[in-house]
């Protein structure tokens, strides 16, 4: 390798590090003060690119190309900052005291809404922006030509970092933000109105995301995949840097940017795997990231402590429910039975996720990884080895089990948002492997022709087959939650420090729960591939993970029957209402936001809550009268 080539790779790495830093710094600043992981940060970035397209196009015509371009970029950043304020005012401020799962879900709802708004406003085509005036063309460095604009980008990162450092150390506002990052309550008792602090921080964070998006426009056309593509990388950078640390984000962005530039030479297609290895390494040495201090340990159980319906669910009641499920498909057509099968399969998926979250207290934002791996395991067995259904279904929990053992080893050392972000990153890695390893997985087209054997080819028979298997796993999960292991798991969720002081290895406990949840989800995935006959990378993607979360949320967290109801509700909505419209994302996103804000307890959870309130009111009455 000659030196000029190495240098040009370094410069490319530094340039992408700048973009990454702009995104990640906004994310980390917002998290530091509000403790919200803003999933919609990628959407703000994408909006930045699209708005910059519109702004530069119109302003360059009025102000001339040079002035118009830069004014356009700046106005875009300010405008996206204002969108951040809008978001704070109508959504985030209602969520500051909510469990972090709800914050993540609600901001993901915003991601979906923006994904439909962008084509509505700008059309579905990729939009190629103008070249940056003054930075067109390339210069030659040691015989390798290098775009001038990339050099400009290399400078932008350190400039913004320096500016932020001055802002946070030399202004009263900055000192207040740093104080609030550490202890919001004390800042309030010192007479500072947090609402304004939060708003200004949201503005700054969104401004940086908008700026990053706008500055990206001369490098790549504005397109509708920008948001999801950037968010996983931004999560990785903030986690490596340490949540809430701007300087940490800067170092992490440099690390990732450079590794990507060289990783692309070694693993051309799956640089994400490379990043994953780096992240794993950093987190093994420093669990809170390079410069992070604030491991968030809160889980929703603390704030959302409600009555568990474990006494409400009894074995006879489970059998009644299964009996009702057995009667449902009678007299229905093939398509309806297929939908019912899908409901069952997703119910198992949601059960396993609920087991992990509701009982284990671990929020997974990448549970689709295990569902998808299970589905791929079954499909690959069938497709490449012509294995029959029994062997394929046997493999479907095994592969996810192995993955859960590996990923879970890292994830269960984390808690709260770190865990959520790590699980998401792992799922994204698997997704990119499935997407890019065409020879094995068929890439985007996926694998087709995965049908059950003749005996089960009848839809109704397959439904009963799935029902009995899922019913069995469900009873098993139910038994596990009541077993000593299940009790310890719930104790670990509610008070992990206390439990480890009692001599229990909480990490192992949570790891075991991670394995159980992963394997159950894998079995659901295996059943899914046989029910549907084909699979594609979508079943590993973030939207499917969020579907799982929505089902759990709809049904109600910490309930056992909830996931079944949630699966039924969501699958029903998807096959009926949402198939009627092109803009299902918009409706889905709005529905998630609505659910989080209005029905945080979910369907079953709300019912139980109403019963509990009534019971309490009654007992109070009798207390008074006696």
């Amino acid at each position, binding site marked *: 390798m000659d030196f000029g080539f190495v240098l040009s790779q370094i410069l490319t790495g530094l340039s992408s590090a700048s973009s990454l830093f702009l995104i990640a710094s906004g994310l980390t600043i917002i998290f530091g003060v509000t403790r919200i992981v803003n999933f919609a940060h990628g959407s703000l970035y994408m909006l930045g690119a699209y708005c910059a397209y519109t702004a530069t196009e119109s302003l360059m015509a009025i102000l001339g190309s040079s002035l118009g371009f830069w004014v356009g970029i700046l106005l875009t950043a300010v405008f996206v900052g204002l969108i951040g304020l809008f978001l704070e005012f109508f959504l985030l401020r209602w969520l500051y005291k909510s469990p972090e799962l709800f914050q993540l879900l609600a901001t993901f709802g915003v991601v979906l809404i923006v994904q439909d708004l962008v084509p509505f406003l700008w059309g579905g085509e990729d939009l190629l922006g103008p070249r940056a005036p003054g930075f067109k063309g390339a210069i030659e460095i040691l015989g390798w030509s290098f775009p001038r604009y990339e050099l400009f980008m290399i400078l932008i990162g350190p400039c913004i970092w320096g500016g932020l450092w001055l802002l946070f150390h030399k202004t009263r506002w900055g000192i*207040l933000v740093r*104080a609030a*990052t*550490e202890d919001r*309550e004390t800042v309030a008792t*010192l*007479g500072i109105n947090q609402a304004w602090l939060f708003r200004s921080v949201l503005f700054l964070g969104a401004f940086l995301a908008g700026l990053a998006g706008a500055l990206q426009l001369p490098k790549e056309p504005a397109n509708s995949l920008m948001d999801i593509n950037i968010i996983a990388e931004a999560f990785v950078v903030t986690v490596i840097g340490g949540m809430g640390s701007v300087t940490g984000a800067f170092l992490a962005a440099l690390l990732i940017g450079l590794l990507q530039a060289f990783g692309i030479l070694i693993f051309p297609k799956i640089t994400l795997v490379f990043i994953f290895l780096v992240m794993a390494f950093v987190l093994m040495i420093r669990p809170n990231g390079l410069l992070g201090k604030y491991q968030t340990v809160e889980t929703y159980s603390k704030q959302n402590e409600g009555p568990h319906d474990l006494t409400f669910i009894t074995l006879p009641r489970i059998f009644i429910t299964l009996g009702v499920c057995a009667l449902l498909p009678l007299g229905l057509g093939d398509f309806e039975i297929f939908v019912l099968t899908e409901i069952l399969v997703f119910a198992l998926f949601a059960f396993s996720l609920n087991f992990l979250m509701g009982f284990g207290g671990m929020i997974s934002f990448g549970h689709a990884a295990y569902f998808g791996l299970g589905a791929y395991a079954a499909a690959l067995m069938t497709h490449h080895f012509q294995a029959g259904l029994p062997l394929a279904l046997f493999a479907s929990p095994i592969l996810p089990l192995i993955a859960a053992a590996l990923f879970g080893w890292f994830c269960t050392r984390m808690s709260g948002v770190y865990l959520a972000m790590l699980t998401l990153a792992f799922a994204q890695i698997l997704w990119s492997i499935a997407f890019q390893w065409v020879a094995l997985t068929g890439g985007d087209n996926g694998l087709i022709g995965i049908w059950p054997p003749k005996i089960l080819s009848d839809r109704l028979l397959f439904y009963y087959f799935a029902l009995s298997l899922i019913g069995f796993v469900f009873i098993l999960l139910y038994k596990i939650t009541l077993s000593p292991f299940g009790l310890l798991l719930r104790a670990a969720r509610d008070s992990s420090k206390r439990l480890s002081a009692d001599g229990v290895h909480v990490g192992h406990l949570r790891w075991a729960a991670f394995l159980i949840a992963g394997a159950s989800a894998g079995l659901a995935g295996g059943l899914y591939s046989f029910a549907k006959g084909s699979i594609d990378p979508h079943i590993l993607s973030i939207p499917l993970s969020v579907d799982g979360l929505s089902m759990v949320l709809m049904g109600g967290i910490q309930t056992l029957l909830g996931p079944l109801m949630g699966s039924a509700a969501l699958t029903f909505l998807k096959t009926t209402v949402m198939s009627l419209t092109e803009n299902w994302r918009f409706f889905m996103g709005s529905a998630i936001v609505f659910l989080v804000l209005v029905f945080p307890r979910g369907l079953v959870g709300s019912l139980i809550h109403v019963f509990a309130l009534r019971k309490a009111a009654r007992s109070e009455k009798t207390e008074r009268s006696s």
Partner: protein
Amino acid sequence: MEKNNKAVSEESLLQVEDLSLYYGRARVLNSVSLHVKAGEIAVLLGRNGAGKTSCLRALMGLIPSTATCINYSGTSLMTFAPHQISQLGIGYVPEDRRIFTDLTVLENLKVGQKPSSHAHLPTWSFDKIFDLFPNLAEMRHRHADKMSGGEQQMLSIARTLMGNPETLLLDEPSEGLSPIIVAQMAKALQTLKSQGMTVLLSEQNFAFSRKVADRAYIIEKGHIQYEGSMETLAEDKTICNRYLALSA
């Protein structure tokens, strides 16, 4: 004329009636009523878990509580957020000090900075703070996580003073400190009092309280059990022994 003046100064600045507080189903405060007159130091004495900290936190609006009245110089605090209560002139120094460890001493003080709105009290500056707590002056650029417990306690009080409060809610300032620092703390409190500061103190340390306080309340299991002047209390051995397990 003189009598009239006295009546005004004797009027209570902070008045609390029937303050009750629950953690879940456990009642932590049970109809607590107390008042603090302008310029006096009142102390809330009680053992661990008696409800002292909860009482101050409730007054500061940090935990939801019920009461028939919480008035501060004629304004009801019941619907106020912590920052509004602070802006009225009530400074709060938490029990666990809550220093911003990422910030330097000077930056900690800057967070507390607020313009004065009480003409009868001196306006605090960095220099005056360092006069009151000389230890802090030597470490103004030190990060607060490299300070001893006593220094952190002083910084916590100093930070609140920078907001120019009219009244201090001071939660166990002597807890866990060495006798020398406790003595310094008592001196600082006497200085504050001589300048006209009003203080509601929560304490377990009777000897310390006796040095600084004018009046005392004894709280036990969320109930106010005793109210009277500090002198009377110091002489009443029965009460002291029953509620305060101490070496008075």
